[in-house]
């Protein structure tokens, strides 16, 4: 929006409002606020006069305190913020960022850690189960070796671990059943 006489009027009204709220006396009028040295940059000086005390100006510290107390009302009247509407010599107190009671990163960390521990436990347990099954299988196999086994040489790529060369129909020279080869 453009800065014109109406906006200046609003500004005077806001300053008067701030003074009224701060000192809680209803004597400050819009005519008490004087603007001077208005530039195109939209920057100006202003003073507040006290009509009850014969045209003296209200001390700067009082005006500063009043403005500071009502800063957010003044800002929102002009749709501006602390950064875009600057009062020289009035620094704003900064609000700290909102901190939740438990830091967020701790929550995320907890989730990640739970997933990992669950994964580790699952893998260890499945490893133990596989180990037990392998032990049971090897004891079962030792029991079965007494019986005559059917040849399984029909499978290709037979692992040569159990060299049960019962393939007597291939190596006809060697006696078939009695020979037991040690597994590699």
């Amino acid at each position, binding site marked *: 929006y453009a800065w014109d006489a109406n906006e200046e009027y609003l500004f005077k009204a806001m300053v008067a409002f701030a003074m009224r709220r701060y000192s809680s006396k209803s004597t400050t009028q819009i005519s008490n606020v004087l603007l001077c040295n208005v530039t195109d940059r939209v920057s100006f000086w202003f003073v507040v006069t006290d009509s009850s005390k014969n045209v003296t100006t209200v001390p700067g510290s009082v005006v500063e305190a009043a403005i500071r107390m009502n800063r957010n009302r003044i800002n929102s009247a002009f749709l501006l913020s602390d950064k875009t509407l600057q009062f020289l010599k009035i620094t704003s107190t*900064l609000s700290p960022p909102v901190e939740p009671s438990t830091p967020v*990163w701790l929550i995320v960390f907890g989730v990640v850690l739970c997933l990992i521990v669950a*994964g*580790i436990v699952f893998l260890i347990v499945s490893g133990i189960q596989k*180990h037990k099954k392998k032990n049971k299988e090897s004891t079962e196999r030792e029991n079965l070796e007494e019986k005559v086994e059917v040849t399984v040489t029909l499978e290709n790529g037979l692992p040569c671990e159990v060299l049960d060369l019962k393939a007597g129909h291939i190596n006809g020279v060697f006696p078939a059943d009695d020979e037991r080869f040690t597994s590699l």
Partner: protein
Amino acid sequence: LSATPEIPKEDGRPKWDNKFQYILSCIGFAVGLGNVWRFPYLCQIHGGGAFLIPYFIALVFEGIPLLHLELALGQCLRKGSIGAWNTISPYLGGVGVGSWVVSILVSLYYNTVLMWVMWYFINSFQEPLPWSVCPLNENRTGFNKECYESTAVNYFWYRKTLNITPDIAESGTLQWWLILCLATCWAIVYLCTIRGIETTGKAIYVTAIFPYLVLTIFLIQGLTLPGATDGLVYLFTPNLNTLKNPRVWLDAATQIFFSLSLAFGGLIAFSSYNPQKNDCEKDAVTVAVVNSVTSLYASIPVFSVLGFKATTAYWDCLDRNILSIINEFDLPEESIMRQNYTSWISFLNSSHPEKIAGVKLKSCDLQEFLDQSVSGTGLAFIVFTQAIILMPGSQAWAILFFIMLFSLGLSSMFGNIEGVFTPLLELQIVSKSTPKELLSGIICLISFLIALCFTLGSGSYWIDIFDRYAGSVPLLVIAFFEVIGVVYIYKIKRFSKDVKWMTGRKLNLYWQITWRFISPLLLLIVFMAFVTLQMLKPPSYAAWNPKYEGFPMKEEKVYPPWVQAICVLLAALPCVCVPLVALFHLIKQKRRSKDTSLVSPEVFSCQGAIS
């Protein structure tokens, strides 16, 4: 049909589920954090596109031959690094032990870097991002002093994450939040390596492929950011004059060497799980080419984002100047914009020169902002995080970025851990009945406890030391002995026959020449140049000291003597294994030759290998 030599003998050794898993593991091991944060930096400071020339030459004459050598060795001998070198010659067993020691040292500090990545990852779920705002000081009138003088991003990294001490001699305390992250990282590594390649083989599908997806997303996003083209042009504009500087060639050679993760023993371990009849030549070329292409591919989004950041900083600088001018001259708002800034400046300079001088404008130069090059952790945790704040939807970008870094590092950790794990399994210091889960658990637990010293206040200084001394010089030495050992002690004729048996093709002239002469020579030159450069100036480090006058610049300090001794120890320990083990065997042989007659060493070759 008794067992012919063609049927692979089952020796109970674990094997890869399929060839793709093996290739992916090698690629994942080679492609690591260095591809993202070191290669683009080198490209930038060494003349952009011109750097690709020495890089490509180093790849062809050093990278690919050494890679092929390691893969062929592991595949032929079917053993981890220690066992393999012991088989070639007991005098060379030290090479394997050296690789093993380097793998341990590097695993320790590499996982600590991942710990930082994890810390940033779990902090990325907040709004606003914690590294985007400075915390307030006690009376809430302004920002924390340390943060205000540097930047919010720097403050979060140096104070909130590292809680860094101003000097390496001051250890500070253990940071509990870092300990939690370190425990998580080692738990993740344990989860993935719990049963050796059975589990890493499954995990690698995710950790090796995911970074490429994220890089593509960042590529698309990065190219749409304003200023991205400036960054890319800056990166790739070739400046052929830099090739006259020998430093450029040295950097290219070392970058290729360390980027391919050679001499760690991890590649030997990976290929030892292969069937012997496998084309290792094609594998080597594939892995090396993919690694280099990934480096190039990663540098595009990195430099788009850096260009964006430089442009934003340049605009901020301009805006601040414009504000000062408008305030000083009381001009209306929006009279000076970025586009007509220069014309306004010249006009004001001619009309009111004293007033302009009184405003004390900062010189805003886009080139200057682009020149601020960073590599390593600075790139990821300071520069990139700052750029992410400026992007819309910063939480999502931060989360994606840090998961990508984590996957890149994790897949390299798999290789490191395999380099430690596989030789231990074969050394027979553990009985056969000990489950693998227990062994990997012990390794991870011990590494976690030792790595706790990196969570101290001075931890990041120590990681720099490990990176500079344990992860550089010993690798060059070990690789040199690897090549010499295979070519001149095992004899290249035997090795050629083995490779021919494995791949089915004769070794062509390229491999013969590079293995025999070029690679060892290159390694020797690189080693000597590297050591000379290190010794030129006393080793120093840059400390973050809030009380320093030049703060936020870092303070240059020299390492105290006891730290320098540790540096030398770290670099010398793996190297000294090589002569020590040779000496040990020599003594053993001398003592044995006194009792019995000298047994001639058995002729060993791949075809008859049974592990």
